[in-house]
């Protein structure tokens, strides 16, 4: 590696002359047991030693064994960076960035006073919590519960319908919910600041990372509306921060702060997955970090096995059991709050619905065993499967035989009713009150007659409309008189022949007698002619799937006594499992349509295309979610730069090049701390390439947080490295001006692009009269 070689053969300044005398806090002997922490601290002291005294003090106020000498350490050098940091230590910059962050997020929070983008979903779901009506969403409940709570506390009464983007809020109080999201979004900046500070021990790196996040238009926009993303990112960054903190407590295991940060990590993890499943990536990050941590501990022979076991147990408890318990608790609250029937009922099984007040299955009492002559509805057991349905419409020309359609329908309707009859006799016998009731038994051959149209459930050797390899199912016959293709054998899974069939609880399979196929729902949506209901087919493949299983939901038979079916109510683990299955199905069902332009993961780091939050035309108040291009491109370049620097450093070390002490420390920060952040970025970005579902630009923002922190660390290291090679005063100047230039660049670009988040009115950017004219640097930006 010639470049590295020459660079590193440069004669180092003698210690006395180095710009970074390695004296301050960390070198105090005997303070730390683990050498790597010590090395990091040296660095902290290294370059910015003007700040080091007070800062170390500030950082360690919580720590009991703080050396007394530290705070009083004099600052030996003239304050080249005085305006940035010197006298105020760490807390003043922290307060400053927090203030800026809150100011930028809360500025014009109430604008625009109408529903923007996905507020229509999440606002609506918040209202559902306030109204306690049950709904279904593909994300876990925590985020929406918090939104609902914020709305409730701020006096929103849950009456606004949130119908579509652009609806005016009028008198409804929406500021509370937006303010809550903006509050959490503002916390990201101090979190990032503290994380970077902890990792790199360099104030300027932390300030750089914080300013990137403060002045990124994308982060501002995303934090200002009623969305899940600020909540998700809050927990995510919280988890990263507490993970970093507990890592740096590694020298004092089982101390109070160690326990505090460890359990805080677990709590934040539970929060992150509780908002969106994307939170799993940060779980993975923390998991990998913990495994590495344990591996290091295992290699430390001085620790006894008992201590190791304690370490392991502590982590299992705080990072696995605690989050799991909290996560389950969220669902318990979710189910307890949402106890009224609502729009989400149809997605869940009959047993689940019986829990919901207002649902027709709630406190229901029906005849328990199926009998001939009963009027029933049948529900498919597939998750979000519909009711067996038919109506007065025929299959169109060219789609199988031209007979009456049979579909699966998610909503409750009179057309879902069917009458069970014997295959060889007619209705009258059963309705005759004098006739005794005859129960349907496992293995019986039956006929199902559609109540409204009096046609029989029928199948034959024609291909089904969508699933070509299955057979078509139709309604056939007049007034219940059909042919032998109307005969079905009814069977219950796991039951012996001759047993009765129970309502709700029996899982029923209907086998077509003539062809041997099984009645099932394929899950595919029919086109317009089928009213976009779900296809029902007869599958010749005999496989045990819920697609081909049904249960009886409603059951009307005046001749039988009704019994209460409270016993059916599912237990909490069952509904937990079921709601997860439904969510996973829902998520994988979000597939992009043919010919639809969708956002691709490679677009994101390039800032290729944004999202319209509000407004389309010139007269509208327009908000456009787009990252500050300067910031994003800086981030993008930095990733390449980081990889280059890390490779050079690691190869140089592997080749055994003699490095000076401060280069060693720099590469330590680069590889160790930077590596963690880089891993976070990869984990939050790469999996999207493998996802089949519809993707949006805002999915990149968690990764963008990591990328921004990496930018802070990398540039700081690079500048220190350059400064280290120059003479002392020169070096300091390069370092100062470099950092300042980067920050000014960020602030100036924010000044240019701030209308993206705070709203634009007037002509589009393509018009030369627009205030944004000349800023449409990419043709794909639509503002």
């Amino acid at each position, binding site marked *: 590696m010639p470049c590295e070689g020459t660079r590193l053969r440069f004669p180092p300044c003698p210690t006395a002359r180095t710009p970074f005398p390695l004296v301050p806090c960390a070198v105090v002997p005997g303070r730390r047991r683990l050498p790597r922490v010590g090395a990091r601290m040296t660095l902290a002291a290294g370059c910015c030693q003007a700040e080091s005294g007070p800062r170390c003090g500030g950082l360690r106020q919580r720590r009991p064994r703080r050396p007394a000498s530290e705070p009083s350490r004099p600052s030996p050098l003239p304050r080249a960076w005085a305006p940035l940091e010197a006298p105020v230590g760490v807390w003043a910059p922290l307060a400053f960035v927090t203030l800026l962050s809150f100011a930028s997020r809360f500025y014009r929070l109430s604008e625009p006073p109408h529903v923007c983008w996905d507020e229509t979903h999440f606002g609506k779901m918040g209202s559902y919590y306030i109204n306690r009506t049950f709904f279904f969403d593909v994300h876990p409940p925590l985020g929406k519960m918090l939104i609902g709570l914020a709305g409730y506390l701020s006096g929103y009464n849950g009456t606004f319908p949130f119908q579509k983007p652009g609806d005016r809020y009028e008198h409804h109080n929406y500021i509370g919910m937006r303010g809550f999201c903006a509050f959490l979004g503002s916390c990201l900046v101090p979190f990032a600041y503290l994380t970077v500070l902890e990792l790199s021990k360099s104030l300027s790196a932390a300030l750089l990372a914080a300013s990137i996040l403060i002045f990124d238009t994308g982060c501002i926009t995303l934090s200002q509306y009623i969305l899940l993303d600020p909540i998700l990112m809050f927990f995510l960054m919280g988890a990263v921060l507490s993970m970093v903190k507990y890592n740096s407590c590694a020298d004092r295991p089982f101390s109070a702060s160690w326990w505090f940060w460890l359990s805080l990590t677990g709590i934040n993890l539970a929060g992150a997955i509780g908002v969106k499943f994307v939170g799993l990536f940060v779980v993975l990050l923390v998991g990998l970090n913990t495994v590495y941590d344990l591996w290091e501990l295992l290699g430390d*022979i001085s620790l006894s096995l008992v201590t190791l076991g304690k370490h392991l147990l502590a982590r299992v408890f705080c990072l696995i059991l605690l989050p799991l318990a909290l996560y389950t608790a969220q669902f318990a609250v979710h189910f307890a709050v949402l106890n009224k029937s609502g729009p989400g009922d149809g997605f869940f099984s009959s047993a689940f619905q019986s829990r919901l007040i207002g649902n027709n299955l709630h406190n229901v009492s029906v005849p328990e065993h199926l009998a001939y002559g009963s009027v029933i509805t049948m529900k498919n057991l597939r998750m979000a499967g519909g009711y067996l349905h038919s109506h007065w419409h025929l299959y169109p020309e060219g789609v199988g035989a031209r007979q009456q359609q049979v579909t699966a329908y998610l909503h409750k309707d009179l057309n879902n009713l069917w009458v069970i009859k014997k295959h060889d006799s007619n209705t009258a016998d059963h309705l005759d009150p004098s006739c005794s009731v005859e129960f349907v038994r496992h293995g019986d051959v039956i006929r199902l007659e559609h109540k409204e149209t009096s046609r029989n459930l029928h199948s034959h050797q024609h291909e089904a409309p969508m*699933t070509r*390899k299955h057979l078509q199912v139709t309604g056939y016959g007049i007034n219940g008189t059909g042919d032998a293709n109307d005969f079905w054998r009814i069977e219950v899974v796991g039951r012996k022949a001759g047993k009765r069939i129970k309502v709700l609880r029996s899982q029923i399979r209907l086998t077509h007698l003539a062809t041997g196929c099984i009645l099932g729902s394929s899950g595919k949506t029919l086109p317009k002619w089928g009213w976009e209901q779900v296809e029902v087919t007869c599958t010749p493949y005999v496989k045990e799937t819920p697609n081909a299983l049904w249960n009886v939901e409603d059951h009307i038979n005046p001749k039988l006594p009704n019994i209460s079916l409270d016993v059916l109510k599912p237990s909490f683990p069952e509904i937990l499992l079921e709601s997860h299955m439904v969510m996973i199905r829902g998520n994988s069902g979000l597939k992009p349509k*043919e*010919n639809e332009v969708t956002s691709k993961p490679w677009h994101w780091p390039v800032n290729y*295309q944004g999202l319209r939050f509000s407004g*389309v035309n010139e007269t509208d108040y327009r908000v456009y979610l787009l990252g500050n291009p300067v910031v994003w491109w800086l981030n993008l370049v930095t990733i390449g730069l980081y990889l280059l620097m890390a490779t050079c450093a690691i190869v140089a070390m592997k*080749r055994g090049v003699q490095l000076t002490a401060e280069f060693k420390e720099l590469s330590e920060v680069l590889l160790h701390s930077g590596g963690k952040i880089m891993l976070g970025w990869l984990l939050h970005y790469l999996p999207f390439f493998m996802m089949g579902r519809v993707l949006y630009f805002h999915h990149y923002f968690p990764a963008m947080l990591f990328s921004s922190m990496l930018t802070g660390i990398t540039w700081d290291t690079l500048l220190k490295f350059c400064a280290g090679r120059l003479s002392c005063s020169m070096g300091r100047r390069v370092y100062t001006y470099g950092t300042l230039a980067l920050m000014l660049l960020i602030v100036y670009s924010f000044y240019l692009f701030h209308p993206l988040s705070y709203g634009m009115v007037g002509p589009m950017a393509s018009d030369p009269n627009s205030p944004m004219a000349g800023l449409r640097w990419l043709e794909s930006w639509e503002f």
Partner: protein
Amino acid sequence: MLGFLKQPVVVTAEINVNLVALTVMGLVNRLWALSYPRAVVFDEVYYGQFVSLYMKRIFFVDDSGPPFGHMLLAFGGYLGGFDGNFLWNRIGAEYNMNVPIWSLRLLPALTGALCVPLAYQILVELHFSHCAALGAALLILFENSLITQSRLMLLESVLIFFILLAILSYLKFYNLQKCSPFTAGWWFWLLLTGVACSCAVGVKYMGLFTYMLLLAIAGVHSWHLIGDQTLSNVSVLCHLLARGLALVVVPVAMYLSFFYVHLTLLYRSGPHDQIMTSAFQASLEGGLARITQGQPLEVAYGSQITLRNVLGKPMPCWLHSHKSTYPIRYENGRGSSHQQQVTCYPFKDVNNWWIVKDPGRQQLVVSNPPRPVRHGHIVQLVHGITTRYLNTHDVAAPLSPHSQEISCYIDYNISMPAQNLWRVEIVNRESDTDVWKTILSEVRFVHVNTSAVLKLSGASLPEWGYRQLEIIGEKLSKGYHQSILWNVEEHRYGKSQEQKEREVELHSPTQADISKNLSFVARFTELQWKILTLKNEDTEHKYSSSPLDWITMDTNIAYWFHPLSGAQIHLIGNVLTWASANVATLVYVCLFLWYLLRRRRKICDIPEDAWRLWVSAGGLCVGGWAVNYLPFFMMEKTLFLYHYLPALTFQILLIPVVLQHLTDHLCRYPGKPTGCSAVLISGDEGSEMMGFIVPAAALTSGTLHYVPSVVTLPCLPEGHGENYSVNACTAPGKVNCSPV
């Protein structure tokens, strides 16, 4: 000189009889009675059609993988003199006499047979005993599923062969690395690794997994090399460059060459033409090329053109209009402009012709000299037969209410003026003054008044629109998507002034000059892209299975069934082999973790070199199994048991590895305290035989039970099958088979 007079010339040949015997056994086992059954078996129906197309030199696209595998099969057909005339439409159909089924199946069988000695050699190169190597080879030799798969015209055995070859050559190369780098042998094995990798990838994309594994292993080894401070910087660089050349550059070049051969061989147009762009089609002989041959290249004002949508999904189609108008009210109650319909029509038709008109002039003919249309020019598009102008306005499209309706303007004399100016934007232009070219240019039409873009929505219109595809004006162009791009396919310079003449002209075939061939790179990129993105509808299959079923062998595939005799071929594994392979994997993983954790605590259970051997053999075998198996859990396509065979091969190699390790280090000294003092035991017959016993047991039990499933058992009443005692033919009512 004349030294041979003084001393005798001695040729010492070292022949490993084991290896030769294994090869012969493999050949016998795979090649014996190869042309039975003379009927289409399972996926032969699929690969066969491609072989036929190769023989006839007709172009096709197969989304299942790159063309090298098909080419190899076709090579077999070529050797056997196959003329390609066979209708591959049904599993079980009898082959005609002109199908050289023996030579078609020869290549997969040969590669399958060679896997046996390869397995032997791999274990030897891993520094395991010959006994263990023999065990591995025998397990491969007698694995029913591998035999079945090799004896038919299928690609898995070819794939496995190349995978094993790549592994073996890398091991050979690595072993040479220590003593003699940069010698001829070193280069040979290094290059062979790259070549075998690219062949594996070329046969099926699954080969990519093994390629990645090898790259990772090579990466780890190179990293050690970098750390080796006895080497100078220059020699480290040379080593790295050599690896980069052989393991990256060579495979990529080979892969390109497969496509080059493929595209050179297939020069005739065929059934899959429609999937490709017009430019690609025009480069094939026949088909579109016959029509477009000699068209004028540059589109000029007055040109008569047909416009094809570039995307070709859901089906390829051309911009079309006809006399019918949009219904005044749609079924859902929304209103329309009631103007003439504009659709996209998937068939060639005279109504697909449009005339490019200069808004400033009235003529519909090409002036002399022609005035070409360039990027950014504003044009009107006139429908040839009805002479109405392509128009869009602020009315919702029939099926996509968020977009604008596209119509051909009819002046109803209401306050709705014509808005028929379109800006031509050439997307793949080289400069801003590019001329709009036939076939080559991909063009976007931007409406001047509303800046809507002409787009194919993908939905089909209902009855009133004759089920043709909907065309919309998308107001918010969300960037680049192929559904908004159009290219001129048929093209001629219009000459007729009068509408009557023009109609005659539109009906006549096009004629003129100029043809343009695409470069190889353009054709390769397009074909590769189509192969990767072409999605067949997910089809449920009777024998499809999930990855979890594979390890437990809960699934099988009936390949073939003779309707009269009841003879069948089933793909099913050797139970004992599969079970012991699973156990071996489990034991390996557990032991590995155990050693690893204890080594971390500085407790060494086995000596250092035994540990290294254990890691490298396991990394290869378990790693190979994992990379070839686990990715299937994330795939959404229809999966079959045969997808597991490459993974299984690696798992089988692991059995003797684990057995030898167990006998050497664990069973030998049960009471011995663990520690660094354990000694590597020199090969002793008794212990090493352990590596052999289980495989041998596996064979005997497995083959006895499963032979019927491998070699099909004819029990034809005519009795011209071989003489087997058969218990597979138990179909009721069949003639009981006895030796003839």
